[in-house]
């Protein structure tokens, strides 16, 4: 724990270094809010997943989703799709953010990119799907497809199809990157050039900076944002619906089918169990993240 600069010890400082009751009161509004507005709906979900319509406890919903292949395939697809779009989004987003942050602070580029990222991070669903269809859809609809055909490259003949999971992934990357830009920019802005120069003057090479300085410091922010991107892709649905609507093998689609189709096939509790499954996946990843962080912290000392 760092000590403050050599300032006279006063009541103020002593109070600020101990975890007093004041802190708990400070986070009370947040805690209460979460309990009501996140806790209650989640309770409904979890409770519903573990009970039958008559109100009795049951494992049935979970045994179904973990044993039937109709639920395994979407799970596998969702995990793969979310992982690669999160990875691509995180890496390219960081590069883009770095390119912007290296410019003039407060300049036009910074403003345009931050506003644009805010908009595009939420640009999803039918408009996004349509934008990709208009670009990479089957000829004669896709502008880029047609252009490439003119120069002899026939995408669709080579097996590409925008109405596929890969196409959905491309569309996801479109909002993952801006999201990453927004999330990682504050961390990048906190990097101070003098530190690089100072470290350089201490004789360390560039690679050593990256390894011992930049990466460890950026790591929590990077990995935390990566996690967000993963969760974001995992629960995204509207874009996939618009692109491959008639046959999507993804978990949110299973959930939607189960919830909406339940007027015909009584499956809404399966949907809730699937929702719990998604929460479990992310919890598992969070634990992994925490373990990595602990190690990184030891490494930093």
């Amino acid at each position, binding site marked *: 724990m760092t000590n403050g600069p050599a300032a006279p010890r006063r009541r103020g400082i002593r109070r600020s270094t101990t975890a007093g009751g004041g802190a708990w009161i400070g986070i009370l509004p947040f805690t209460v809010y979460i309990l009501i507005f996140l806790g209650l709906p989640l309770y409904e979900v979890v409770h519903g997943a573990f009970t039958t319509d008559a109100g009795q406890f049951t494992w049935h919903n979970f045994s179904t989703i973990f044993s039937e292949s109709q639920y395994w395939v979407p799970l596998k697809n969702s995990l793969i799709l979310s992982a690669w779009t999160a990875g691509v989004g995180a890496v390219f987003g960081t590069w883009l953010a770095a390119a912007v942050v290296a410019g003039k602070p407060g300049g036009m580029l910074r403003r345009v990119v931050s506003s644009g990222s805010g908009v595009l991070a939420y640009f999803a669903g039918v408009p996004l*799907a349509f934008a990709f269809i208009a670009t990479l859809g089957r000829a004669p609809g896709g502008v880029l497809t047609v252009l490439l055909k003119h120069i002899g490259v026939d995408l669709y003949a080579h097996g590409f199809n925008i109405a596929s999971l890969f196409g959905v992934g491309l569309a996801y990357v479109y909002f993952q990157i801006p999201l990453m830009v927004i999330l990682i920019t504050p961390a990048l802005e906190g990097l101070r050039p003098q530190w690089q120069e100072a470290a350089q003057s201490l004789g360390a090479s560039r690679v050593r900076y990256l390894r011992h300085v930049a990466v460890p410091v950026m790591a929590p922010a990077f990995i935390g944002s990566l996690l967000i991107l993963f969760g974001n892709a995992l629960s995204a649905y509207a874009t996939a619906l618009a692109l491959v609507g*008639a046959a999507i093998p993804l978990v949110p689609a299973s959930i939607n089918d189960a*919830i909406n189709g339940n007027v015909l096939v009584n499956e809404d509790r399966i949907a809730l169990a699937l929702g719990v499954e998604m929460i479990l996946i992310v919890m598992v990843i969070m634990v992994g993240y925490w373990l990595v962080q602990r190690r990184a912290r030891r490494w930093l000392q």
Partner: protein
Amino acid sequence: MFTRNRRAPGRSTKVRFGVPAVGVMAVAACSLGISSAANAGINWSSVKSAAAGGGLPALVKAAKAEKTLNVIALPPTWANYGKEISAFHKKYGIKVVSFNPDGTSAEEIQALKQDKGRSSEPDAVDVGESFTAAPDPSLFAAYKVLTWKNIPAAAKDSNGDWYNDYGGYISFGCDMTVVKTCPTTWKALEGSQYKGDVTLNGAIGEAAAATDAVYAAALNTGGSLTNVQPGISFFNTLKSDGNFAATDCNAPAVIEAHQCPILINWDYLNSAKSYGLPASFAAHWKVVDPTGKDFAGYYVQAISKYAPHPAAARLWEEFLYSTQGQNIWLSGGARPIELPAMVKAKTENKTAYNALPKVTGTPALPTVSQSANAGKTIAAAFAAS
């Protein structure tokens, strides 16, 4: 013709709830624009016919006092619903609030279940037939329109919970800039020249049009109204052969972008006009009713049991089943349920009637229970795989 059925007010023997008709009229006239339940002398939520509420004028008055009508999942270009809504508004001055126009029948039923007490709960719904076998205690309020007897017996619930409104035949819509020939039979869809071409409107099991496409395929691949398995296999084969394209052709923009080379949909929906497509696209769009067994599907109207505007809901139904309302559907290319009766009475819109898509072959019309069972089987088979 229906006007002759109007009961004269004051024939209190027709009023079922023991409230004197005169008192009803007076109180209805004084009721303000709040939910009529508590304030008016008559509770329109439990009124089962216009007569029971004191006649059509009483209904009109009460509906006008409610000022608003909530509808759901009614795209303006679907069977000319835009015109239905604007004509209704013009005639009675009631504001029609249209929620979730792209919604599916499943979402409509969910809204009825979940939005009791909300001011935006749908007052009436228009759902696919397979959705009327709702497992809950009925979400619908029984009501018989003035033209009740013009609706065939097989097309309505004897209690008045629901009633068919309009229908059409499953057809193929072809984007001639992408496909060279438009298939005219179901078997032709399996042709190798149609790789990645066959598309649907919505997801099977959720949207009535998509579910009924499977039903229609069943009839033409060896199945029957009670055996839909061949249809399920047919679509699975299309998928494994690569002929089926996963693109959801619900959004007309996607059709305009040439992503729906062969679109299976109701014939009244499959026209370039009803998709709102520009003239340049319409010139290359062709609609074909495939030969063989023609699958006819009708949609169903029902009033919500907990409608926030019960009088307006009932007036809306009266309007839809009036000659005017039925003809508006007819001019949208759909076949209104009272069409046979109207043709007999010569009240149908002749131009629209003649413009209906020509149907060859033998029409097949499932009963409600057949529809419901088929829907369940199909939905289960295609659930998220």
